[in-house]
């Protein structure tokens, strides 16, 4: 029992590390865990506990750099703009509190919903999967139609297709191997493009207000439920990430404010992380890097699933406390720090990490993604349309048209 606790704490520590350092993803550490499990006498159940704790804690802590530095990881990209907006209004800590609330309550709600989920959604998953492209096209059409003005609709469609074509070029051609292009793509569309205006503006960060009064529960119920439901869906269906889930949640909750949005997006991310382990048990399919690693280390039966859920809840509780403390610390000190040099340092770090991960070809991808990422703010349409970078390849994949389109472009 003590060894499980020790490994869980180790996983929490690694989750804090991977969450705080932009560009370091939990998936980078997974091969190490699998190698340890296969080549030594480490207990597989202990390593699985560490992996679950790390992946869950990472979803909480990654909101700190995405809020204070505008540096997203996979899944937190859509939170950058609302969180950054709150930061520039002096409410950075509030953004962290909202995401901690969204992550923790969604984690608990998902744990409660696991049993009905096993009975209902998972048997229906194959049906949803075959119609996924229509679902995504439906979401896209509604999103674009919501722009209302003709010029807004034009720019929304333009940004969607520009980022979608960029996604196809970077993720589905010979330019980069595997998913290494995701880092420059997401950092350009949702990171550097958010930070650049701060670099050129002379104003620094306002003093951050630290509120300690409890969050109101009632206004957050709808975004929380929608976020959890979308997270469950994305945890079961392949190739649909938290960002598409957030789009779904946003539509379902009809939330317009930045605060509701943050609760919703954080709920999607955490519930997806938990449900990916349930999918491993129920349908034998791994829907996240962490679930793949757990699946390679041990067979997940009902007993193991209950254990993993217990570890996830324990780690989630601790992660929320750490996130709030780190968020408070960051809010206290960020106002005093020279914000412009920090933004420049983050941009330089992102450029360095891009070269490290994707090689020199990552730079034109990053530059193009940044140019596209600048468009939503200046044309006043939602940044969500930049999710075309993943949505368009997904729609083509589910429709069975990806190869046709790539061949038509001689790619």
């Amino acid at each position, binding site marked *: 029992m003590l060894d499980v606790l020790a490994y869980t704490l180790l996983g929490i520590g690694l989750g804090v590390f991977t969450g705080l350092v932009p560009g370091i993803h939990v998936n980078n550490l997974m091969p190490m865990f699998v190698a340890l499990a296969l080549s030594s006498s480490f207990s597989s159940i202990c390593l699985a506990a560490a992996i679950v704790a790390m992946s869950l804690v990472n979803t909480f802590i990654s909101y700190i750099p995405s809020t204070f530095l505008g540096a997203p990881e996979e899944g937190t990209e859509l939170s950058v703009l609302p969180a950054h907006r709150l930061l520039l209004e002096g409410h950075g800590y509030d953004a962290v509190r909202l995401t901690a609330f969204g992550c923790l309550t969604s984690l608990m709600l998902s744990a409660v919903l696991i049993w009905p989920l096993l009975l209902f959604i998972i048997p229906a998953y194959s049906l949803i999967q075959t119609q996924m492209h229509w679902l995504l096209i439906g979401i896209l059409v509604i999103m674009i139609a919501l722009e209302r003005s003709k010029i807004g609709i034009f720019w929304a469609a333009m940004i969607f297709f520009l980022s979608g074509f960029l996604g196809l070029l970077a993720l*589905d051609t010979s330019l980069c191997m595997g998913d290494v292009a995701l880092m420059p793509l997401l950092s350009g569309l949702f990171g550097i493009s958010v930070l650049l205006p701060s670099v050129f503006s002379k104003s620094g960060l306002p003093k951050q207000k630290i509120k300690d009064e409890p969050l109101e529960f009632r206004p957050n119920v709808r975004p929380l439920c929608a976020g959890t439901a979308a997270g469950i869906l994305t945890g079961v269906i392949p190739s649909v990430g938290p960002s598409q889930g957030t789009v779904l949640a946003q539509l379902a909750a009809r939330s317009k404010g930045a605060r509701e949005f943050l609760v919703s997006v954080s709920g999607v991310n955490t519930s997806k992380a938990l449900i990916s382990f349930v999918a491993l048990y129920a349908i034998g399919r791994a829907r996240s890097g962490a679930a793949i690693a757990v699946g390679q280390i041990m067979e997940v039966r009902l007993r193991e699933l209950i254990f993993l859920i217990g570890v996830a809840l324990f780690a989630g509780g601790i992660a929320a406390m750490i996130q709030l403390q780190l968020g408070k610390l960051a809010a206290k000190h960020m106002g005093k720090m020279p914000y412009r040099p920090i933004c420049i340092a983050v941009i330089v770090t992102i450029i360095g990490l891009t070269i490290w991960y994707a090689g020199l070809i990552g730079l*034109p991808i990053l530059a193009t993604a940044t*140019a596209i990422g600048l468009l939503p703010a200046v044309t006043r349409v939602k940044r969500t349309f930049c999710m075309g970078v993943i949505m368009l390849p997904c729609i083509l994949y589910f429709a069975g048209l990806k190869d046709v389109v790539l061949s038509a472009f001689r790619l």
Partner: protein
Amino acid sequence: MSERIIAKLSLLCSLTGLAALYFSAANTHPAITAIAKLNEDFAGTKVTISGRIIDLRNHTDGHLFLKLKDDSGGVISVPVFASVRSQLKEPIELLDAIQVTGRVKEYQEELEVIPDKASDLHIVHAPATRISSLGENQIGELVKVEGVISDRAIVGSGSLILTISDDGCELPVFVPASVIKNGFPEVHVGYTVRVDGWLQLYNDNMELQLKDASNIFIIEAA
């Protein structure tokens, strides 16, 4: 700078970047990937693999199903669909070295690399082994021999034994009835043929067993 100008500049940079990336992608050929390295993470991406054909099956619809093995020890399926196969200028044989560029797909929980067009396949034909150089240490191995049919006998329930003669040495080739029923070409004594098959011992004598009708090539009819 006004928002209008920034929008125009951003759009211009986006389009320029996309055009540059498009031309790079269209003219970039992926480096050769070791087959053993391929896993589910590669699904959907384009790769180039290179290896030797260790299995080859013809489909009645004209498709060709290959299995490739490379120095990494990995084995992967390469389906060459009829539309691509019909564009090939030369036949593909067992043991040929082949370089394939294609997209990685998962089919029935197994990975495969699917070439889109004939130019995605580069074939280097393996030379035939002299019958005189074959030894019992090669039993169970896949070998390619070439020679003239010196004898042809039907045995059992429609199986065929062809005797191939090369430079004074002979090797019986066993063609099971199931292969004969599935498109095996008409061959007679005097034909020069190339045969790919598995070397085996039968009544203490070495013989070659054919597993598919596509494993025999008529070089010259008598």
